[in-house]
């Protein structure tokens, strides 16, 4: 145990000295490993130990938060005193028995990374380097491979008498390949990550990932510049879920909704998407990058249906936003570390698969852009305008997959795009990422089936008209 229950009670009691509706403490003990290879050399092997606690008191609409690295009795009580100092009411009595909560789901870790030798982890990045260079020959100019693992132990306790102990183990691996021909430079990227141990690299072998990244970079060398203009877009199931994350995920986070900063505010129970669209956030899926048993304020994780058959059914809540609506949190209060207060966040967000054969969708669309892999994205939740990067894209010509294109970005408006979903495939492909909001990064995954969107803005440097087969709509 990181901090004794007796001390946790003392700290919560001290934090509520000047009143408050709710107090909690989040204690974290984190061990990290980071390994990176570039230029054929294992450049970095880093180990980290991060220890700290964040203490919070919520009173009405005000939150007071303090954190410290000092987990001694004096250190924690001092931080609790600073938090209490923000208020000036009478002491809030709290009789705490600190009952331990049990998780709703269990995840199994097959091979704990803290029991795997560093040399073995370093070999993984070297395997990736070799495989990428073998796959691409002279045109491969650089291979960057990174491995990381995190073992995070947390203890959470609050003035409702709830106590949670948890351990989160995450492992990730990524390869970036730089290919060049003449003055043209292109990059290919492939990444895997999960709430899992070193077994991740059995399912996602470093060499295989490196080959995919190398082939993508080489393909882009041959690709033509992406067209510019409005056109139909098919997102392949294997492309990942950046679009659902940006086009609707963020706008369904309750803090943005309550502040009136989301296009989806005041739309619960209303139609916001085509009938075929169902959107779910489910942190209880086993072994995904955004999976967790408890969120970061001790609420058991649960599957939340956000949009059902086109109707907005729920937002993602943490404790503070839930209490404003006099409801319970649905387990989406997450934080990067003890240095941050929890806010509503996504876990594993996806569009539920439909019934259509993905190839049939491409045949039906006839002409447009096929997105085979999505990159990063960003959204302005207030207007709903979003963009995301196409890491691998092709033109669809007469119902067939045509030539590869490079440098495309897709831009759209969340609600418009959701209404404009015309067909949904029966496949589903996940991608991982670190999602940034309010300066906090948390691990997430997202997924979509193959989807046909009637029209999106494709931002490329080529001219749509000059590409012959691409019809502008």
């Amino acid at each position, binding site marked *: 145990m990181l901090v004794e229950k007796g001390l946790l009670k003392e700290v919560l009691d001290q934090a509520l000295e000047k009143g408050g509706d709710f107090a909690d403490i989040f204690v974290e003990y984190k061990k990290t490993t980071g390994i990176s290879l*570039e230029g*054929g050399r*294992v*450049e*970095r*092997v*880093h*180990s*980290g*130990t*991060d220890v*700290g606690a964040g203490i919070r008191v919520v009173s009405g*609409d*005000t*939150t*007071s938060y*303090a*954190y*410290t*690295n*000092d*987990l001694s009795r004096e250190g924690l009580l001092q931080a609790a005193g600073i938090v209490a100092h*923000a208020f000036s009411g009478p002491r809030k009595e709290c009789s705490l028995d600190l009952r331990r909560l049990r998780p709703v789901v269990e995840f199994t870790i097959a091979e704990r990374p803290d029991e795997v030798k*560093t040399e073995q*982890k*370093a070999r993984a990045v070297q395997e990736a380097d070799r495989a990428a260079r073998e796959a691409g020959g002279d045109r491969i100019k650089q291979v960057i491979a990174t491995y990381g693992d995190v073992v995070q132990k947390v203890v959470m306790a609050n003035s409702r008498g709830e106590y949670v102990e948890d351990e989160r183990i995450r492992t990730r691996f990524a390869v970036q390949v730089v290919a060049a021909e003449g003055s043209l*430079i292109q*990059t290919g990227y492939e990444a895997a990550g999960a709430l899992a141990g070193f077994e991740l690299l059995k399912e996602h072998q470093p060499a295989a990932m490196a080959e995919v990244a190398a082939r993508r970079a080489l393909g882009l060398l041959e690709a033509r510049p*992406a067209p*510019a*203009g409005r056109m139909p877009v098919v997102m392949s199931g294997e492309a990942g879920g950046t679009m659902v994350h940006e086009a609707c995920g963020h706008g369904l986070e309750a803090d943005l909704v309550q*502040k*009136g*900063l989301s*296009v989806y505010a005041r739309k619960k129970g209303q139609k916001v998407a085509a009938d075929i669209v169902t959107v779910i956030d489910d942190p209880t899926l086993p072994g995904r990058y955004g999976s967790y048993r408890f969120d970061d304020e001790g609420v058991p994780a649960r599957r939340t249906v956000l949009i059902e058959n086109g109707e907005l059914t729920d937002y993602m809540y943490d404790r503070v936003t839930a209490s404003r609506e006099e409801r319970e949190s649905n387990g989406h209060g997450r934080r990067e570390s003890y*240095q941050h*207060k929890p806010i509503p966040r996504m876990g594993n967000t996806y569009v539920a698969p439909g019934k259509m054969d993905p190839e049939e969708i491409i045949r039906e669309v006839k002409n447009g852009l096929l997105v085979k892999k999505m990159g*990063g*994205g*960003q*959204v*302005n939740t*207030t*207007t709903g*305008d*979003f*963009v*995301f*990067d196409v890491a691998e894209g092709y033109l669809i010509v007469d119902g067939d997959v045509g030539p590869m294109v*490079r*440098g*495309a*970005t897709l*831009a759209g408006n969340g609600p418009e795009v959701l209404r404009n979903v015309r067909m949904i495939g029966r496949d589903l492909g996940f991608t991982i990422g670190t999602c940034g909001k309010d300066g906090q990064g948390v691990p997430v995954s997202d997924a979509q089936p193959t989807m046909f969107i009637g029209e999106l*803005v*494709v*931002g*490329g*440097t080529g001219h*749509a008209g000059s590409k012959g087969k691409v019809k502008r709509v």
Partner: protein
Amino acid sequence: MLSGTLDIALWAVEKARSLGAEQAEGYISFGRELVVEVRDGKVETLKTAREQGLGLRVIAGRRVGFAYTSDLRREVVEELAARAVSNAASTSPDPCNRLPAPVPEYPVLDLYDRAILAATVEEKIEMARALEKSAREYDRRVRAVETAAYHDGEVEVGLVNSLGIKASYRGAYCGLYISLVAEEDGEAQTGFAVDYTLKFALLDPVKVGREAAQKAVRMLGARSLAAQRVPVVLEPYVAAGFLGLLGPALTAEAVQKKRSLFAGRVGQEVASPQVTVVDDGAMEGGLASAPFDGEGVPTGRTVLIEGGILQGFLHNTYTAAKEGVSSTGNGVRGSFKATPEVGTTNFFIRPGASSPEELIRNTPRGLYVTEVLGMHTANPISGDFSVGATGILIENGELTRPVRGITIAGNILDLLKNIDGVGNDLKFFGGKGSPTIRVAGVSVSG
């Protein structure tokens, strides 16, 4: 207090040496931070933080190992030393792995304004309130303030190495941040403004609040624009974002690893003659200023592009050793959790002679770009970018109507060469700064 913490770093260095490291370096920091967020005149969040940590870098058998901890108890630091030395065994050896030697002196900089610490929390809350109030009073269409925040912090950094460097400094900063929404006829637009400085007296909440409100209000009624190629005028914030894309390519690390757009082009014209790009780690008042970098090398001024001609690259001790040159003092550490990597400090485009108004007036038809979305998706290796954008149309030298839902795309090298106007309004956003910039022709898609 710092002399005590330096002792911990020294002890870790000695411990690593006793475990077989030929060279060792301890970087220790102690920080304090305050954030006040106000909403509807009331404090929404009050956050106070104390953070400390030690990063230990060792060189053993020409291999580098690193470990960090935020737990500074003796037994943990002892384990840290063992971990750093054992990590070195899994990295590749390189004769250029070395630590810098002591220098006679460091630049003397004014980095610690006592007024920041002296101001009471109540005064700081008042400042955040004034920020929110000025934004709301600017225009009745300002409907919601997402965040109106006052932020300050101070940090003490100590650095010791086994070659004899033993140095420390103290710095403090303060800033204001506001983001808000303006609404009219059911349409919402966002605006934000930010200002960070080393001097408490320079904070101007009324100005920052108005700037954010004005940015949101001027976007009301925005529509898309047909695909075309037009001249664009980039606001300083947007131009600084594009400049940020160049940062990695101007490091010797990227050149040595064959992933720089500028490799092998020193002495050549890589930008329009109006463009001069500078990095200055010892700049007066710079948010990224410090007497020494993350490995104890004095900071200084490096001109990277002068009049469009590429002059050279940024170095840390390792990349300098590779080429037999001196480090430029650009071994930048994000925190005690990271090793000193080649990076920018106060990195900016030198201002020109034209006012931003003149740049717009001399543009018959173009786009004034006020915000970009997805800059992080641009590719710093190839230089290709395609980002979402909002802005205001320029017709006959005047700003006419707001534009949204478009993308602008191209390659950063073409953008540099096509710059045909540099404003006199250099503005910094943290460590990156730019004046207003005009670019001759950029692909716009909408």
